[in-house]
């Protein structure tokens, strides 16, 4: 494994983003705008804002990174650059880790800006540590990225790739315990949600917000999902076609 090639790939992806200022602006400003709207929608029920906004801090980076990576890797697959790369001395894992590094940095920036806006001017209060909340947001972003890379191999067009958002992420969102506590769900749905990564992402966020409970188990399970999905993502990169 070569750090040079991983870092080179990350730098290339960040350069691509840099040449696309509109995407950067949307990535950072859209979640801030949504947070602000949320604040005023619930101006008479501040406790609802406190509950939802914190969880959304983890969800936004995941959604954004999912979209960017699924479309980005699909573009790499269809433009021929992926095939071109895989005949060069770079391993699939190095390429995937390059992606993870680049989007991890993008996620960090997004998470810091959006959390600062929410915790600062919008008056979001959390009982746990703010640093911890940002760490959760970054893990969520990496999770969204790894799902994005993985599902992009099942899409032939960008239209299809984007449709995986409602197909793959929204069901997880519904079952994650964000909208309704998981304890109140029918047991079959609760069992299904036990196997979905988003469940643990939301759980970790809620623990950090309430300042109660340990996030150790959530982080461990999220790490397992992350490694498995990145590995599966690497396997979907094929050096050879039939």
């Amino acid at each position, binding site marked *: 494994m070569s750090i*040079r*090639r991983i870092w*080179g*790939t990350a*730098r*290339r992806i960040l*350069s*691509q983003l840099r*040449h*696309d200022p509109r995407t950067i602006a949307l990535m950072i400003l859209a979640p801030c705008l949504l947070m602000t709207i949320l604040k005023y929608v619930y101006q008479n029920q501040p406790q609802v804002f406190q509950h939802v906004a914190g969880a959304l801090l983890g969800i936004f980076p995941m959604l954004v990174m999912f979209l960017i990576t699924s479309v980005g890797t699909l573009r790499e697959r269809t*433009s*021929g*650059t992926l*095939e*071109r*790369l*895989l*005949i*060069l*001395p*770079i391993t699939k894992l190095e390429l995937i880790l390059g992606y993870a590094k680049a989007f991890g940095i993008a996620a960090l920036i997004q998470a810091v800006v959006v959390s600062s806006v929410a915790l600062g001017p919008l008056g979001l209060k959390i009982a746990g540590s703010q640093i911890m909340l940002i760490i959760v947001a970054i893990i969520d972003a990496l999770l969204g990225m790894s799902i994005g890379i993985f599902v992009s191999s099942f899409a032939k067009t960008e239209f299809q790739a984007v449709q995986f958002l409602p197909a793959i992420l929204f069901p997880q969102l519904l079952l994650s315990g964000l909208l309704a506590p998981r304890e109140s769900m029918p047991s079959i749905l609760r069992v299904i949600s036990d196997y979905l990564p988003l469940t643990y992402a939301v759980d970790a966020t809620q623990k950090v917000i309430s300042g109660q409970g340990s996030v150790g188990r959530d982080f461990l399970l999220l790490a397992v999902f992350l490694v498995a999905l990145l590995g599966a993502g690497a396997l979907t990169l094929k*050096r*050879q*076609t*039939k």
Partner: protein
Amino acid sequence: MSAAVRISDLKIIRDKKTIIPKLNMEIEQGQIVGLLGPSGSGKTTIMRSIVGVQAFQAGSIAVLGLAAGSKQLRTRIGYFTQSASIYTDLTCLENLHYFAHILGQSEISVHEVLELVDLTKNQRQLASSLSGGERARLALATALLGRPELLILDEPTVGLDPVLRRDLWNLFHKLADQGKTLLISSHVMDEADRCDSLFLLREGHVLASGTPSALKADAHTHEMEEVFISLVERL
């Protein structure tokens, strides 16, 4: 002289359609070998199988003495694809820096290949704003990085202006003189004369092979187009 590429009894089936029924081909080191034929004749498929990205059902391909697709070949082959495989949202320099980075090549080699394809003045331009010909030259520059021993170039001169085309062919000859092997595909028959030897392809079969002059002498003509037509009519 040893063969840079040796293809034996190659068979390729894609989507239940036989693309290459049974192909034998030998490409000598230090030569410019032309792969000529209409579109759909299997040129790209053959090139992809030599590079190692096309799976095949039967036969064998030895590239520089190793099985096609071997790990050790990854720094030794330069590949130019028809749809210029470059990042259009990066500048020329950024594109080349990235590929050089992966190949472990220096900054100097980046400027060297930019010079070779005459893109030095466009180096800070985004690839998306380049013309079709300039994009093709950028892709060619990435294939030349690291001075590979074997260059597989899939229609590298399509759509280029005649002066540039001549310059590129001069470059190809210079590379061959240095001992590099070049496999170049084209559907433009008039490029055939610039190759050391040719394979004329149709529907996955080799119609004929040899030096341009020998092929023309056999068909009693001075035009490569005529050679092709007479070979097809003889079938």
